């Protein structure tokens, strides 16, 4: 295990953890319910750690990417349904990320939003074309570390630490009306969906295969999953806690992604604002890359095409055309002028519906001794895996009713 590689891997995971949905929902959750939803972030983070570690282990031992498993485990028909649902979910998510990046660039430079959407999509496509896989992931992830300014801002505003610590204990605030309880439920579902986005697992496990992981990489996989996701989650929790402290008492429920940047500007002034916007820009751009590539990986793996960024683009022509076409499709969605917040809400909804079908085959294969030999799921991984599977299934079933009953969390 190379310590430098390990450190870079962890830092990349930290910087790449937050995407546009987490940014929006963390800020809204804090302003609406104070610190009471911190535990949902913490709980969901353990879930994504469990499934990321599992998908990395399956990639290293069984050498199977998630969508290959899906076709074998769910059968062709159900596999195809899952593929279609995940294509739609990832496409909407990718469009939300491109819209988010364009908005952030608009806050930084004042350049028109739609022009920025075109320019940034082209730049992201170019970066994927010219950079090796490892550096695509690292550049966006490492530059996303500017978001640490949100954690520093939290220290800078001297929040009530005891209340923040109490937020890690599972709770439902007292004295909520029925409508407020439903809104609380909707936020729980949205946070679970935003943290456990399926694209993260597709991208992570495909990346493991791209980098030819083997049994020697299992410890790195475990440490990167636990520390990278765990520390990344602290950034999201910082955004929530800053929002609870600064926005809640001011009657603000952040309606646009740029609002979160104010959290760093209040204690640190212009430099805080600029660092926050730069961190958001690279973290969200990284998420755009991951969603689009995850979609292309899924399609190529499902149909058995040659795939991977370790190959020259013309050596895997269908895969190359697919990821470029998916970026263009996501850009076209943004160019219709649809509101970024609407896209974020749709991304959350579609993703939660796909989650159970994404994680079931992974759980089954990681527990199959024939494929995984001595690296099969242990008691802890198996127990946690099934608990989280039950939680995401309940969340998936309640997502649409809660969305409709609460007007998308707006009460």
């Amino acid at each position, binding site marked *: 295990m190379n310590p430098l590689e390990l450190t870079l891997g962890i830092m990349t995971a930290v910087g790449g953890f937050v995407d546009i949905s987490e940014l929006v929902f963390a800020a809204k959750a804090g302003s609406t319910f104070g610190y009471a939803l911190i535990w949902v972030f913490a709980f969901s983070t353990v879930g994504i750690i469990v499934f990321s570690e599992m998908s990395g282990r399956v990639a290293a031992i069984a050498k199977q990417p998630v969508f290959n498993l899906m076709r074998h485990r769910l059968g062709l028909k159900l596999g195809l349904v899952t593929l279609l649902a995940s294509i739609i979910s990832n496409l909407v998510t990718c469009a939300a990320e491109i819209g988010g990046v364009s*908005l952030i660039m*608009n*806050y*930084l*430079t*004042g350049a028109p939003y739609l022009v920025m959407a075109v320019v940034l999509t082209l730049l992201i496509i170019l970066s994927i074309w010219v950079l090796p896989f490892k550096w695509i992931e690292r550049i966006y992830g490492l530059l996303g570390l500017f978001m640490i300014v949100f954690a520093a801002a939290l220290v800078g505003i001297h929040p009530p630490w005891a209340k923040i610590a109490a937020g890690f204990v599972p709770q439902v605030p007292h004295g909520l*009306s029925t409508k407020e309880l439903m809104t609380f439920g909707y936020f729980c579902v949205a946070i679970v969906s935003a943290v456990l986005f399926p694209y993260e697992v597709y991208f992570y496990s495909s990346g493991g295969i791209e980098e030819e992981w083997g049994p020697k990489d299992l410890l790195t996989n475990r440490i990167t999953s636990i520390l990278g996701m765990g520390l990344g989650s602290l950034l999201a929790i910082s955004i929530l806690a800053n929002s609870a402290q600064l*926005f809640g008492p*001011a*009657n*603000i*429920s*952040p*309606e*646009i992604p*740029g*609002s979160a*940047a*104010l959290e760093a*500007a*209040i204690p640190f*002034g*212009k430099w*805080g*604002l*600029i660092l926050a*916007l730069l961190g958001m820009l690279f973290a969200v751009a990284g998420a755009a890359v991951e969603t689009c590539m995850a979609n292309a990986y899924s399609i190529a793996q499902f149909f058995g095409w040659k795939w991977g960024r370790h190959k020259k683009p013309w050596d895997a022509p269908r895969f190359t055309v697919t990821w470029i076409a998916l970026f263009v499709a996501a850009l076209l969605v943004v160019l219709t002028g649809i*509101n970024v917040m609407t896209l974020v809400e749709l991304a959350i909804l579609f993703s939660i519906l796909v989650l159970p079908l994404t994680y079931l085959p992974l759980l089954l294969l990681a527990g199959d001794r024939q494929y995984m030999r001595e690296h099969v799921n242990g008691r802890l991984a198996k127990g946690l895996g099934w608990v989280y599977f039950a939680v995401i299934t309940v969340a998936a079933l309640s997502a649409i009713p809660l969305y409709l009953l609460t*007007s998308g969390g*707006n*009460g």
Partner: protein
Amino acid sequence: MLILAALLAGCSGSCPEADLQYIKQARSIGAEWALINEQANANNLTPTYVTSMHVWLRQQLQTSSTSLTKPDSRYGKEIQALLQQPDDVAPDEIRAHVARLKQIEDQLESA
């Protein structure tokens, strides 16, 4: 039962309760606008960010306003008054509108 059904049918889509989410949205946008102007006055924000945020907030506020089922109501007029303010209006002036919207919101929620 019939009276209840008639009341529900009459209410659907046109009661002030149906506008509650837009009132909340407008109140929040107004409060955010005040915070931005306050931070801009303290020289904590870049001019580009302030200009962009004003454009987006105004757009959101306009959407809330046009989504109202009763634009001529007290809250509709309050939102219109907010929309007519210049971008660099004093934070306290915006907060006065926000306070009135919050009052209406609380009244509707407790009704």
